[in-house]
């Protein structure tokens, strides 16, 4: 589908989207005005991106901390390479885990290769939940650590378009 947007307009639209969809009745009309295009072109581009799988999701992006989910732990595990996919898939399906990624080891400084995020209202509940998960999946014997966050210096939408013209970030 041809949207008729120039590469410059497409890039500008992406930057605006990274900052957020405006909270007005016709948000894509509003975005279209900012990039000197019309609403149909912007909606066409949105559908095209959606079909290409460029969006992970389009919707409400919440601030966990402001909602009272202030206990945020990163669980890191040192999983034998032969088991990483199996363990990753199992933990990835577990309730309460919002992210589960394999990342490289950096020996000797960093031995952990599986990263999970768990959010909760209270630290102790998060610790208990994680211990339950490890027990359930027979992973308690694997070397692992819990890294609780103590302060958020910055938290906003990711910006993949070229920098320096980025829209202001919220939060």
């Amino acid at each position, binding site marked *: 589908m041809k949207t008729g947007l120039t590469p410059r307009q497409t890039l500008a639209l992406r930057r605006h989207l990274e900052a957020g969809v405006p909270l007005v009745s016709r948000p894509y009309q509003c975005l279209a005005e900012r990039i000197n295009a019309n609403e149909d072109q912007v909606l066409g581009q949105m559908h095209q991106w959606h079909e290409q799988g460029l969006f*992970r999701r389009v919707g409400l992006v919440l601030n966990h901390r402001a909602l009272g989910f202030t206990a945020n732990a990163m669980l890191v595990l040192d999983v034998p390479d032969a088991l990483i996919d199996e363990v990753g898939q199992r933990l990835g399906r577990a309730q309460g885990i919002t992210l589960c990624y394999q990342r490289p080891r950096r020996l000797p400084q960093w031995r952990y290769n599986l990263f999970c995020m768990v959010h909760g209202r209270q630290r102790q509940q998060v610790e208990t939940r994680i211990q339950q998960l490890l027990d359930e999946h027979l992973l308690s014997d694997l070397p692992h650590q819990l890294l609780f966050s*103590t302060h958020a*210096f910055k938290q906003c939408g990711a910006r993949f378009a070229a920098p320096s013209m980025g829209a202001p970030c919220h939060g």
Partner: protein
Amino acid sequence: MDLDLLSRQLMDRFQHAMPLCAEPYKAMAVALGCDEAHVLACLHAMDQAGTLSRVGAVFDHRRAGASTLAAFAVPATRLHQVAERVSQYPEVNHNYAREHFYNLWFVVTGPDRPHIQRVLNELEKDTGLTPLDLPMLTAYRIDLGFSLGETP
């Protein structure tokens, strides 16, 4: 109209996906059986309260560019100064202090990997600290929003 109830419904229904059409807030209102004006008022209130970070697109960084999770082990006395330096980059969207020898963790995103490398090199030069550079290799679960009910 109960804004607390409505905000809860909006969070439950429209984190993963919202209608992709000219009047998405009206479509959301229809789905919840209320008026568009209520939906917009509620989202504005959530925005003001800080619970809504934004309504927006979360891009898939494997397709939409490059990113990495980086960490510094910063002497405690320098933590705020180094954190501020890191946060200055528009390429950095998350920057957290964590309880660990590696005590500053941040996500760097950019159009491609060389761009990310430049940011990390600059930070290393500026701070005298060597970052851990941990790009994602496999995603077993990606962030699709989260349920207020099921989390501890």
